[in-house]
């Protein structure tokens, strides 16, 4: 290693450490502020923290449930993170996962007699395709018409929800109930749970999600597609002049992200409800935004960011039960505050600058004395 190379690596390392520190500080601040709110509501912040921690990690079952919440968040986190690298804000994970879910149910209903080894993977592909279509549409609108993705994704969220309800109600309705529910899917499509987590409905989907994360991170980091994403996100104009088709990247990144959002259907439909119904999602799409932003758009970080928010989600549920004044809505407070904390770049930069100045002064003082 030449000297130049070594100093370069040191610089990269320092930058990574700074980013990690900033993220932790941001999360810590958000959490602290959220606990402060709890305190205003009359609960002891320590009590709240304890409930959150035991609820998320207290027993194997709890941990299993946390993982159960984490898997969809990994998917929607990826769904937001991939376009984020290309400079796009995918607020539409909610709609993408809805369309993905309804597509997988449609597939299951259309092919009720499909054999065992093929059933689940094909249903998964249907889910991915549905989400990819819904996401790719946004990318296409931006590429061809210049429509801002923040608005189109949100509009498509509403449209997607209505569309899915329509399909569930008019095409594949369950005749036994009045609710907006589709008929049940055939048994070979059910995802089986693992046994060692005491009944938490978690199966191989966890492994799949983690693996997908790792592979995707590796591919985006070392592959040319990943480079193109990064370049377009960094400087559209320069990338365009260098030969990268930014319109193609927009469509591809939104489609890829949307597809992963669609895979949430694996967990909610195939793994849990075994049908489509309203309320399957529990805001996974929206939370994916928080997950991706805290992960700073890095796919690898989505893993533990999803775990963090899943723990919060699980804990919030118990908060509602175990306290009088707090509901699971506190988790939105905490999420919003965490994002604000992580996004407050200049606050942390200022802090580091201040610390560096202080260290500098100390060193100078020591040198002269």
């Amino acid at each position: 290693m030449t000297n130049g190379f070594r100093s370069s690596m040191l610089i990269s390392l320092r930058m990574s450490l700074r980013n990690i520190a900033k993220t932790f500080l941001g999360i810590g601040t958000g959490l602290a502020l959220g606990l402060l709110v709890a305190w205003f509501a009359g609960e002891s912040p320590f009590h709240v923290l304890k409930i959150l921690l035991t609820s998320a990690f207290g027993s194997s079952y709890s941990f299993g449930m946390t993982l159960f919440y984490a898997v969809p968040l990994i998917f929607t986190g990826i769904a937001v993170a991939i376009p984020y690298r290309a400079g796009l804000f995918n607020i539409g994970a909610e709609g993408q996962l809805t369309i993905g879910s309804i597509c997988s149910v449609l597939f299951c209903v259309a092919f009720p007699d499909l054999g065992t080894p093929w059933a689940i993977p094909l249903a998964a592909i249907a889910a991915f395709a549905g989400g990819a279509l819904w996401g790719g549409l946004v990318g296409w609108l931006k590429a061809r018409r210049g429509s801002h993705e923040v608005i189109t994704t949100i509009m498509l969220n509403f449209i997607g929800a209505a569309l899915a309800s329509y399909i569930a109600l008019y095409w594949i309705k369950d005749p036994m109930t009045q609710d907006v529910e589709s008929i049940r899917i055939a048994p070979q499509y059910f995802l089986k749970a693992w046994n060692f987590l005491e009944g938490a409905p978690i199966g191989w989907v966890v492994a799949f999600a983690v693996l997908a994360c790792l592979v995707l991170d590796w591919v985006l980091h070392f592959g040319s597609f990943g480079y193109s994403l990064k370049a377009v996100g960094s400087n559209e104009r320069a990338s365009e002049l260098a030969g990268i088709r930014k319109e193609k990247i927009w469509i591809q990144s939104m489609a890829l992200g949307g597809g992963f959002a669609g895979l949430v259907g694996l967990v909610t439909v195939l793994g849990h409800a075994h049908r489509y119904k309203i309320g399957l999602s529990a805001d996974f799409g929206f939370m994916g935004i928080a997950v991706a932003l805290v992960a700073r758009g890095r796919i690898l970080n989505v893993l533990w960011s999803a775990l963090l928010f899943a723990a919060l989600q699980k804990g919030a549920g118990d908060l509602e039960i175990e306290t009088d004044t707090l509901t699971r809505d506190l988790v939105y407070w905490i999420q919003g505050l965490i994002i604000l904390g992580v996004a407050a770049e200049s606050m942390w930069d200022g802090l580091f600058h201040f610390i560096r100045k202080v260290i500098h002064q100390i060193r100078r003082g020591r040198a002269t004395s």
Partner: protein
Amino acid sequence: MQIIDYIFSAWFFPVLRVSAPLMFAALGGLWCERSGVIQIGLEGFMNVGAFAAACVALSTHNPWLGWLAGMAAGLVLASIYGVSVIRFKSNQIVAGMAINILAIGIPPSFSVWLFESTSSTPQLPVEATFSVAPLWILLVVVVLSAWFFSNGAWGLRMIFAGEHPEALESSGVSVTWKRWQGVWIAGILAGCAGATLSLYLSSSYSRSMSAGRGFIALAALILGRWRPIPTVFACLLFGVTEILQTRLQGVVIWGTEPVPVQWIQMLPYAITIFVLAGFVGRAKAPKALGTSSAN
């Protein structure tokens, strides 16, 4: 005479009523974005404003106090946003989404603390609601916006804050202060929008009652090219789609069954996309929108 009467009562006034929250929010967003700060938090401001207005109107039986509460709530939330993006230079879209997420949690939490329920607030008595006052307030706001946009020095400076902040700064006017003004106006007007929702268009607050209006207001702003009068017309257009939505319910267009309610629900949102994609596409936003201030 009868047809004029019909147009007025069945279309003009309902459209005006329904567009009112959009117009408040869109004008708030206009001044904010004109000063150079992206504003996607209108939805959150509106929602919290609606809730605050309903709460205060309920307890004081006075819609005006409720209105003020709505404005105040919007102002508080906008200040949090302002601190994030102006003081700490956070990415404005990220911070805006964070505020929206935060705003989802605020009304239910307060609702539990005050009323012990997380869904709608109790119904407001008649004297706590408005019958027509918000429309007058809206008129004043529209006229003021349009006037100051072209005439006053204040409007000119706001425009420069978004077009060329360095030029404004070097002429001795603080860009930061102008951007704070923009953010606060967005908060106040979006709060008014929320109050209009819960005190005028209905008489209670229900969960997530803004239903995406904050974003539709943003679309109206883009459609109106960040100018007051065109933006107001864009809001009216979206108001028409909303009225269309209610008129089409139960109506039979083809076959024997009425149009499924889901298609009607989609209408405003689908039209928003069509309009955005069809007309505007590459509108000219204020040049320095989204960049941090000159210093």
